Every structure is written in structure tokens, then in C-alpha cells.
């Protein structure tokens, strides 16, 4: 696909592609052993990521559905109040989960070039649990937001 045809991808086609992707999803089935992590393990992972800084509340929002029908595709949006200037910007956004098999879900590297500190993605939740978003600012401060998400069909009957 060349650049010209890329630009011709319509909104409808893009959405259809996403919808088809959701249908094609397979189940997140855990194969024994320690099935999922614990909230304490998530806090440990957070400490490792941000090196002992105490996260503050405020400035960061984690938008998530209160009830996710399909644990395989849970849409999340993280936004941070920041001018995204050289003097004041978000360096990293992390998303972690309390009780998935591993605490870390994803990390985004941002900077003033982004203009707006907002990212979206879709994650898997093996069961209903809390999801945490962290924003690391350029001055070293860290902000934290939490969302509790119920999952109707967790990764395959979870």
C-alpha cells in the first residue's frame, strides 16, 4: 500500500478493521502455575519503574469503562494536564494492572513534540480489577490515577 492509498483509508474502513480485529481475538487462557499477580506485586513493579518517588493524585486521568463486557479488549485513555512545553511536559505514561499475570501493561514515551499528553490503547484483563496509570513528569514528579473495572467475560470465563 503506497502513501496515496494510505490517505484514502476512510474512517469507516479503519473502524471496520478494528471491529474485525476484536472478533478475531482469542481467549487469554492461563495454563496453570501462578495464574495472576497480586496488588502488592503491582506496587513493587511501580516502585521499580519510578524509583521510590511517591506518586501524587491529580493532573492525570484514566478513562476506562466501569464494566468491560469483553476482557480481551478493554479500551483505556490516559490524559495528563500538561502544557507539553520544554519546561513542563510528560516524559512517560505507564499502565499497570493489579491482577493480570504480569503487572506491567505498557509504557509510552512522550515529550513536548506531542503537544497534548493523551494516549489510548486496548488491554486484556483476565478478571475484574483495578488498573493504574502513572505519569512521569520532566521535573521528576509522578502522578497516579486508578480505575476499577468490572469484567463480564474475563479472558475466557475468568
Amino acid at each position, binding site marked *: 500500500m503506497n502513501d496515496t492509498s494510505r490517505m484514502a483509508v476512510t474512517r469507516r474502513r479503519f473502524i471496520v478493521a478494528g471491529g474485525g480485529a476484536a472478533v478475531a481475538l482469542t481467549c487469554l487462557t492461563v495454563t496453570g502455575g501462578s495464574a495472576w499477580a497480586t496488588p502488592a506485586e503491582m506496587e513493587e513493579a511501580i516502585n521499580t519503574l519510578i524509583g521510590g518517588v511517591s506518586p501524587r493524585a491529580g493532573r492525570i486521568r484514566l478513562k476506562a469503562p466501569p464494566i468491560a463486557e469483553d476482557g480481551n479488549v478493554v479500551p483505556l485513555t490516559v490524559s495528563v494536564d500538561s502544557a507539553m512545553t520544554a519546561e513542563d511536559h510528560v516524559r512517560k505514561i505507564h499502565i499497570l494492572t493489579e491482577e493480570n499475570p504480569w503487572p506491567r501493561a505498557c509504557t509510552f514515551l512522550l515529550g513536548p513534540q506531542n503537544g497534548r499528553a493523551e*494516549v489510548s490503547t486496548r488491554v486484556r484483563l483476565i478478571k475484574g480489577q483495578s488498573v493504574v496509570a502513572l505519569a512521569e513528569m520532566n521535573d521528576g514528579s509522578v502522578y497516579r490515577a486508578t480505575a476499577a473495572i468490572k469484567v463480564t467475560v474475563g479472558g475466557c470465563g475468568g
Partner: protein
Amino acid sequence: MTSRSHIRIPSSAKAGEIIEVKTMFTHPMETGLRKASDGTAIPRDIINRVECTYLGQTVFVAELQPAVSANPYLTFFLRATESGRLDFTWIADDGNVSRDSAELTVA
């Protein structure tokens, strides 16, 4: 062959405008935790890193873990400064690197 990558940006932007960039990449994001029907473990195989450069500068990086859904979908924002190309790279566990790009016209 259908492209595995999808990139959506506005067809044009004003200088200084902040635009939304949306991408999706067709990939199973195999967690390594699933078993095949014959009971053998399906090895982990995910896209672990997505990078975007604009005018040759890295403007966005996503580091992904198995918790990210299949067909990883990402959106972020970008300040449009001048016309140029957004180059995307998707890096898989097996070292496979996929690339795609989109042209941004800044009027």
C-alpha cells in the same frame, strides 16, 4: 496482500496544530500463557515496541507487554510543524520489524 498496518492522521493540518494519530497493527499478541488444542504451550509472540518518527525525529514510543490486546491499537497526539512523513516501526519478539508511513501536509 492486505497491509497489516493501519495509520490514520488528518489529511492536512495548520502549522502548530495538534493532530491525533491512530495506528493499528494486525498481530495476535500471543501471551505465552495459552495452550494449543493438543496441550502444547503456544510460545509468547508479541509486538513489544512501536516507534514513530516525524521529520526524522522520534516523537512517540510505546513499549508493550502481553497485556496489550491483539492487534495493538494506539493513539497519541503530535504537534504539526511542517509537511513531512510519519514513519512507524513495529518490532516483534522474533525480531521481525514492520514499517509503514503516512504523509502529513502542513499548510
